[in-house]
């Protein structure tokens, strides 16, 4: 990250996905220019991904520490419902308070995950898979079959879902601000870099004296808080909250991060990549009907495109690696990772370091 060469390599990984994204948008626009050019089209293009973007950013922070948070979907649902209830139970409550409440609620749920993972010494996949069901269960038993309708929420709140500043939807602005803050933090602060170190080799991090427990805890809290924020956003955008809210969105969040070049074994990847991944996933979904692919085949195409995206990403990364090798051997600074070793080992040697 610290040098043009390595930085270039990383950037190119994000670039790969960005290119695919642009292609998708271009294709859709070419089919029906309203996809991009109409004011609705423009707004949807920007707004629709912002929800997943928030989740993907949080997910990235966790994945970088070689953990994963599968409970975000349930957290989102729970906070979305909380949002509605806050409005119905105490009318006239200021919108800001609701946002804060949602974030706080999310952070709390994230904290539970973090504590269980950091102190329970149980794999995050197991813990969060458990809390995925637990949180969803709490949601269901709390909400029962009650549901939040648009009429239950003040229009001042609902309008957040649609209003824009300078042609950029408010929710997008919100998501991008979050993205920039988190991204900048991960890149330029000690605690940020320590997250990468921890994910890169947890044992080494402990031996080195890094505050592993505290950092991992924080990562989960951040992920939870962002999921909470996403919950409030969900309520504002969709205007209704039923027990299905956020169901199985967690895999999309992980998918977005991984497609964006975040290594699932921790230690590398950026929120920028994850953000682009989120945009790609959502935009593919929206573009397909426009491109005229039958409703029934859309999911298949989405799958194919996800695969295409990660394969392309890998190809570009591999080419960069080769260049790195060439440079190093020519300078004879230090010899390269042997080109012969099967790519699996590149991911697995991470694992072996665990």
């Amino acid at each position, binding site marked *: 990250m610290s040098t043009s060469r390595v930085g270039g390599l990383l950037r190119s990984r994000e670039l790969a996905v960005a290119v695919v994204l642009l292609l998708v948008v271009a294709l859709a626009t070419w089919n029906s220019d309203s996809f991009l050019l109409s004011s609705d089209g423009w707004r949807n293009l920007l707004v629709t991904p912002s929800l997943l973007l928030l989740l993907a950013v949080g997910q990235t922070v966790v994945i970088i520490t070689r953990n994963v948070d599968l409970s975000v979907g349930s957290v989102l649902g729970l906070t979305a419902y909380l949002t509605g209830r806050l409005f119905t139970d105490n009318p006239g409550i200021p919108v800001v308070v609701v946002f804060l409440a949602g974030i706080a609620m999310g952070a709390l749920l994230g904290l539970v995950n973090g504590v269980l993972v950091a102190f329970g010494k149980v794999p995050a996949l197991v813990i969060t898979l458990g809390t995925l069901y637990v949180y969803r269960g709490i949601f269901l038993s709390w909400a029962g*079959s009650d549901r939040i*309708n648009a*009429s239950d929420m003040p229009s001042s709140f609902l309008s957040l879902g649609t209003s824009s500043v300078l042609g950029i939807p408010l929710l997008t602005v919100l998501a991008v601000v979050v993205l920039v803050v988190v991204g900048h933090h991960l890149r330029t602060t000690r605690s940020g870099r320590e997250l990468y170190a921890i994910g890169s080799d947890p044992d080494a991090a402990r031996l080195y004296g890094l505050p592993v427990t505290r950092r991992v805890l924080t990562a989960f809290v951040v992920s939870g808080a962002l999921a909470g924020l996403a919950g409030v956003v969900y309520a504002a955008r969709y205007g209704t909250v039923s027990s299905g809210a956020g169901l199985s969105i967690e895999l999309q969040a992980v998918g977005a991060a991984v497609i964006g070049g975040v290594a699932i074994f921790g230690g590398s990847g950026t929120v920028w990549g994850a953000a682009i991944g989120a945009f790609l996933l959502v935009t593919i979904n929206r573009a397909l009907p*426009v491109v005229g692919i039958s409703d029934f085949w859309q999911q298949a195409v989405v799958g194919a495109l996800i695969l295409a995206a990660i394969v392309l990403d890998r190809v570009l990364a591999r080419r960069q690696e080769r260049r790195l090798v060439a440079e190093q051997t020519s300078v004879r600074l230090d010899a390269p990772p042997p080109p012969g070793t099967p790519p699996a080992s590149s991911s697995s040697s991470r694992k072996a370091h665990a």
Partner: protein
Amino acid sequence: GDDGGSGGEGGGGESAGAGVTMLPKNLGNPYFDASATGATRASEEFGGSFEIVGPDTATPDAQVPFINTAAQQGVDSLVVSANDPTAICDALEEASSAGTKVVTFDSDTDPECRDLFISQADAEGIATSQVDLIAEQIGGAGEVAILSAAANATNQNTWIELMQEYAASEYPDIEIVDVVYGNDDDQTSFDQTAALLQSYPDLAGIISPTTVGIAAAARYLSTSDAQGEVALTGLGTPNQMREYVEDGTVQSFALWNPEELGYLAAYAADALVSEEITGEEGDSFSAGDLGDYEVGADGVVVLGDPTVFDESNIDDFDF
């Protein structure tokens, strides 16, 4: 099986009336809550007991375990809205062989799998009323799209077929350009609506014969430039739609009273359990303040024609 003597709340052993266990497509669906309210009122009237169980996703394999459990507990009667006409049949047959009376409502199974089907209104009635509503709103001509629930939802598909036939014959200038599926999920339905407007710039109207779909579509329209441009109707509950009728996004939509549907289903179940009827064509039973009903062909009981809601009457309803 026993008459639910040991059947927990499901059995309602000691009480005079039947124990009614309701299994909707999924919980957290306001439409079925309304039905449940009706059914509860009914069972209070005939002194039975009532419980509602169900999955949170509307799939048949999620419904089957609930049927199994009910069968084990030997409940008096099951009132089911089927997620699939066939998939839950075996389970239902197990149940009836265990002595449980099976009544389907809202969405039917194959006739041989149940004793009675309480139909909200005959399919034609539903289909035609919605097409008429949209035609009236778009002036009888233009592109119309349909936003449905799950691709396999039995009743949805029947209605859609009928709508297409009816529109073709009665309104030659109306073209039904597409059918998309929101899977009764707010987010999906919402995004599907957005996609529809993208793909069909000249779209004149949308019919959404599902309460979740119409609400999501209304929400999207109310926030987009298409508000007022693209007409929307379908089947929705007043509480969900009030907002959008008031802000002019939606002129009118239809629905039978789901509360009455549940009410009638419960009474039918009670009639079966008390062996007052067997479900034969021609049987007739009384359903409290709804009056008497007669069993039609294939053991179908029809509730009546749907109500149309618009700003004039919407405030008279609360469900």
